[in-house]
């Protein structure tokens, strides 16, 4: 009896240690979730205007980048939240190929706007929607297990 019960007790002890050691991850934050959904909406709206000149949209572009800087700082300030901070950093990177990179290209490569014959804007929007949906899915999963297929939209 004692010998058969001991392994179970040892298992429970191991489980208890695991519970206290592994359960640390950032909690769900409505603020973080809202930063992600708002930045997605603002990005899609601004990019839709990229057939126009950068100078005519400079204020909105700079406001969006500031929003993303705020969201990055917010994410980076939360413990055990490395993935969300890394995603924000990639999204805003002016040398990357996501939001920051698009705005840099608009300013330097096609300051007068993307050619009317080009499908670049629509293709970019499709890809950047995926980028934001992964971040939104991560934020949703902090609250409860959520399939990313249910978040995408």
């Amino acid at each position: 009896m004692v010998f058969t019960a001991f392994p179970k007790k040892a298992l429970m002890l191991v489980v208890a240690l695991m519970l206290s050691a592994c359960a640390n991850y950032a909690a769900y934050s409505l603020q973080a979730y809202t930063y992600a959904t708002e930045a997605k909406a603002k990005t899609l709206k601004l990019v839709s205007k990229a057939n126009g000149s950068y100078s005519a949209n400079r204020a909105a572009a700079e406001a969006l980048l500031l929003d993303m800087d705020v969201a990055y700082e917010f994410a980076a300030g939360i413990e055990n939240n490395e993935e969300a901070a890394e995603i924000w950093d990639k999204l805003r990177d002016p040398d990357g190929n996501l939001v920051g990179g698009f705005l840099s290209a608009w300013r330097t490569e096609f300051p007068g706007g993307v050619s009317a014959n080009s499908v670049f804007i629509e293709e970019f929007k499709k890809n950047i929607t995926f980028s934001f949906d992964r971040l939104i899915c991560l934020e949703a999963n902090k609250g409860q297990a959520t399939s990313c297929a249910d978040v995408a939209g």
Partner: protein
Amino acid sequence: MDTDAVLSAIEEGLTDLIKNAAKTFSNEAERDLKAFVKESEEDIRRYAKLFAEGKLSQFELKFLMKMKTDNAELLAISAKGIARARIKHLMNSMKDLIVSTILAAV
């Protein structure tokens, strides 16, 4: 209180919890990865066609191709974060199971 019965119930419950959580996450991660790969293949073929038709410039084509690489990284980073979040939920469920099983026995 029958300690052995309580421990058996906890052990059985924990096993089910872990199996279900691992299977669900593994299936979702695999489905997300396969969907991304399939969609990327289709997109890259379409970009090449659009470039040939003059509907994408060389700069735009390169940008979109690099964007796929960035999105592959985002997929991996987010999957890691989601896995960590799911482990947190699993640990909480395990705590709840242990406490409720013990309380039900006393």
